[in-house]
């Protein structure tokens, strides 16, 4: 007797090792980077508040805040602090622009495949461009 039970495909959650093999569309890249940038800012929140604290408390602490970018913080050199800040700048810009994209999609129901594709590319390009511009300013290129 023939086995009439068909072999059905089984879908399981993706394992971490398989993630690199997945080619994401631009909207998928924007989405995962939205999450990554949010997690980054969450973890660096105490550092941001430390900078905020020193920049406001007094002129002396303001000098300490400024010198962190040249002479470093503890055992971390100044260029590393600048690099971390560049990461935060990118994180903020990407999260901001991707967030505005979400709000725009919610408000105008702009959820076709084409709109999602083009707005994702705009998000990636704009956040990269602004990060490069502000990064050049941060590292004193202009």
């Amino acid at each position, binding site marked *: 007797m023939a086995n009439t039970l068909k072999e059905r495909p089984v879908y399981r959650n993706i394992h971490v090792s398989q993630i690199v093999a997945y080619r994401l569309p631009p909207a998928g890249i924007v989405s995962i980077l939205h999450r990554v940038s*949010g997690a980054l800012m*969450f973890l660096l929140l105490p550092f941001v*508040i430390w900078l905020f*604290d020193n*920049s*406001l408390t007094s002129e002396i602490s303001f000098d300490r805040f400024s010198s962190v970018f040249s002479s470093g913080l503890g055992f971390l050199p100044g260029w590393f602090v600048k690099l971390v800040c560049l990461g935060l700048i990118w994180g903020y810009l990407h999260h901001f622009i991707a*967030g505005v994209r979400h709000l725009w999609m919610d408000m105008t129901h702009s959820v076709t495949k084409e709109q999602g594709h083009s707005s994702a590319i705009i998000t990636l390009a704009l956040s990269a461009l602004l990060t490069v511009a502000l990064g050049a300013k941060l590292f004193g290129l202009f």
Partner: protein
Amino acid sequence: MSTNFGSKRLVVGAHYGTRDWLSQRVTAVLMALFTVVLLVQVLLPGPMGYYKWAGIFASQWMKVLTFVVIVSLALHAWVGVRDIWMDYVKPAGVRLALQVFSIVWLLGCAGWAVQVIWRL
């Protein structure tokens, strides 16, 4: 409010996360507006230094606005970080521990930031 207990409780459909979804968007709009307000004041003419920077946060309306944004940020980050834990961390004990850590982390940061604006 729909019934969430007994035999008439809502067991299907959406709207479980509507409140979180909405609060994340409302807080996002508040933070975005704050960014614009701060940016305008930073870009006003005058050399950037301690006096201009501290002057921005010296007015009471700016302190109140910053306070609202600090609370918004904590709520917004709570919804987002909780989503991350719920998506990737399955063991209930580990997830609970990470969620408790997130709450402590965010409340601690919020308290510190509020202290910064109101001790000046």
